[in-house]
């Protein structure tokens, strides 16, 4: 299979959908010159009517995408940084996400929002490092976060074809990663988790940029004689409860490795699902390694106390397998 970078695979998915359906168009800041790389070459290939550079008016252009979608288009909105989700929040969750319901099920709003370079990047500090996927999930917005190049392309294509608003988080930590990408037209369906590694003693649920670290942790554990299963939900809403619960029922132990804040974060939701649905299978308390509830600080010296670290994941996994329930 071909090897591609995450960002290239995502771009290929977008380009294929633009070729396939002339209702698909892109709008966002600096997308013609493609500062973020997602839209590189698309303006040259598809022209002015398919790739719009917007002013720095996130709420405004998010609203335009909603109106255009109701009128039959399939806009792809690029948010240049993750904080733009906050700037556009009303138009995202109160308008795009709610309108179909509030209109009694009339119409469709097929907008794809790509949150570029989401999550922490070294030295960018508090307003450029958030990973607010739980906020969107909380409001009922379909939300995905691919962890591999294959899924970056497959979920991009699936999101564009979905007849509802879908937010894609494209974590900065993954954009340059290489991996195998199948040829041709394939979709990664929403609502299906990926078992990134099979195991029988412990389940690690790892989100987006943390999947590679979780896999390394599983390697280390294997050397210690512990067989860890790594689940990459990749579709955060809808969440694939079946794959998650099947794994937890098999292993009886779960550690969640999540790049969102602790309180009401995504790990909190997964914990609750596990506690509700797999309580009898649990042999250890559900453990969460998440961000601490502070903005990401500037100094790298402070990072380790804030961002979810592979070391803490490893400790939590070791602690989990030591637990015995009498």
């Amino acid at each position: 299979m071909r090897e591609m970078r995450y960002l290239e695979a995502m771009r290929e998915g977008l380009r294929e959908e633009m070729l396939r359906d002339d209702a698909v168009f892109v709008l966002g800041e600096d997308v013609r010159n493609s500062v973020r790389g997602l839209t590189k070459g698309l303006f040259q290939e598809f022209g002015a009517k398919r790739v719009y550079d917007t002013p720095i008016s996130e709420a405004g252009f998010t609203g335009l995408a909603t109106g255009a979608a109701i009128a039959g288009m399939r806009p792809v909105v690029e948010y240049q940084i993750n904080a733009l989700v906050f700037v556009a929040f009303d138009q995202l969750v109160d308008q795009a996400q709610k309108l179909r319901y509030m209109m009694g099920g009339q119409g469709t709003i097929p907008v794809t929002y790509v949150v570029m370079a989401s999550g922490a990047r070294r030295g960018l500090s508090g307003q450029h490092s958030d990973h607010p996927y739980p906020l969107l999930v909380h409001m009922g917005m379909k939300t995905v976060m691919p962890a591999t190049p294959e899924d970056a392309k497959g979920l991009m294509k699936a999101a564009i074809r979905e007849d509802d608003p879908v937010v894609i988080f494209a974590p900065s930590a993954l954009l340059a990663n290489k991996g195998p990408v199948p040829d041709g037209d394939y979709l990664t369906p929403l609502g299906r988790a990926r078992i990134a590694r099979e195991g029988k003693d412990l389940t690690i649920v790892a989100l987006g940029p943390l999947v590679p670290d979780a896999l390394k942790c599983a390697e280390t554990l294997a050397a210690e004689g512990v067989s860890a299963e790594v689940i990459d939900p990749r579709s955060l809403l809808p969440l694939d409860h079946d794959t998650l619960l099947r794994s937890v029922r098999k292993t009886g132990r779960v550690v969640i490795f999540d790049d969102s804040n602790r309180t009401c974060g995504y790990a909190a939701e997964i914990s609750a699902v596990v506690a509700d649905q797999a309580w009898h299978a649990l042999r250890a308390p559900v453990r969460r390694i998440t961000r601490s509830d502070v903005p990401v600080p500037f100094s790298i010296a402070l990072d380790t106390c804030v961002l979810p670290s592979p070391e803490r994941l490893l400790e939590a996994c070791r602690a989990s397998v030591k637990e015995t329930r009498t």
Partner: protein
Amino acid sequence: MNASDNQLVGFYRCMRLIRRFEERVVELVNRNEIVGTTHEYVGEEAVATGVCHALGVEDVITSTHRGHGHILAKGGDPRRMVAELMGRKTGYNGGRGGSMHIADLGLGIYGANGIVGAGVPIACGAAMAFKQRDSSRVAVAFFGDGAINQGVVHEAMNLACIWQLPVVFVCENNGYGITASIRDMSRIQKLSDRAAAYGMPAETVDGMDVRAVHAATTALVARARAGGGPSFIECLTYRFVGHFTAERALGLKYRTEQEVAEWRLRDPIATYPLWLRDQKLCDPARVDEEVEAQLEEAIAYARESELPAPQDALQGMYAVTYPGLPARGW
């Protein structure tokens, strides 16, 4: 372009329908047949009527929290509107929206909206789709004098101008955003002056004069259809009643009785039919009777309509559904 005789009569029918619709709604609110509160369009009928009669069914509007008038003027069915206000299954939104959210996509009504200013970029988005598809359809964004200070409205005006979208911004300046006088909220006298900042033509018209509103809108809609881009109309108008039906109970005093009385002298429902009769265009009393019958029927229809089943509350959020979505609360 002057309105035809038929249109002139149509204006009256529409304004009268809006006025009586709102009055009947207040009765229903007071009798608790409608839950919550509604924002009446009483006094402003000439604006929605003049604007929407300059549009075709294929054209799109976005409306506001004070939306009944816009929806009726765009052809909304009073039966399904009252049914929505009464939370019935047959209501426009199946009981999920209520007064501030009535929508009929088939009539180009992309919804009233509970968030002040939020519909404005949505109208521009429809206009963007029309332009993209080389269609001659246009969009109209209704919003108030309060909304003119909302950031997203300005973002949308600028976006419409840079992309020359076929959209007409209709600012209904009724002088107040709840209790806040626009005199205190803006240093400029004419809100239409703000349009110049984005590079589009603007007019301020007498919003109590349906023919003036219609003529101005017709010209600007034609301009947008021909590829001339966006424009802005400020309609000077007034609401004769409180901000919402609940206002009476609050005893707010932010405008004088004299001010209200002066504006009431210009009530389009009172002045316009006199003119129509003078012109021998119709007998307004006949129209009034027809409107009464129509509303009587609408209310009866809503009352007879079924309530939705509780489990319907989980339907319609997603066009594409998945197991367990939306999650239940228990």
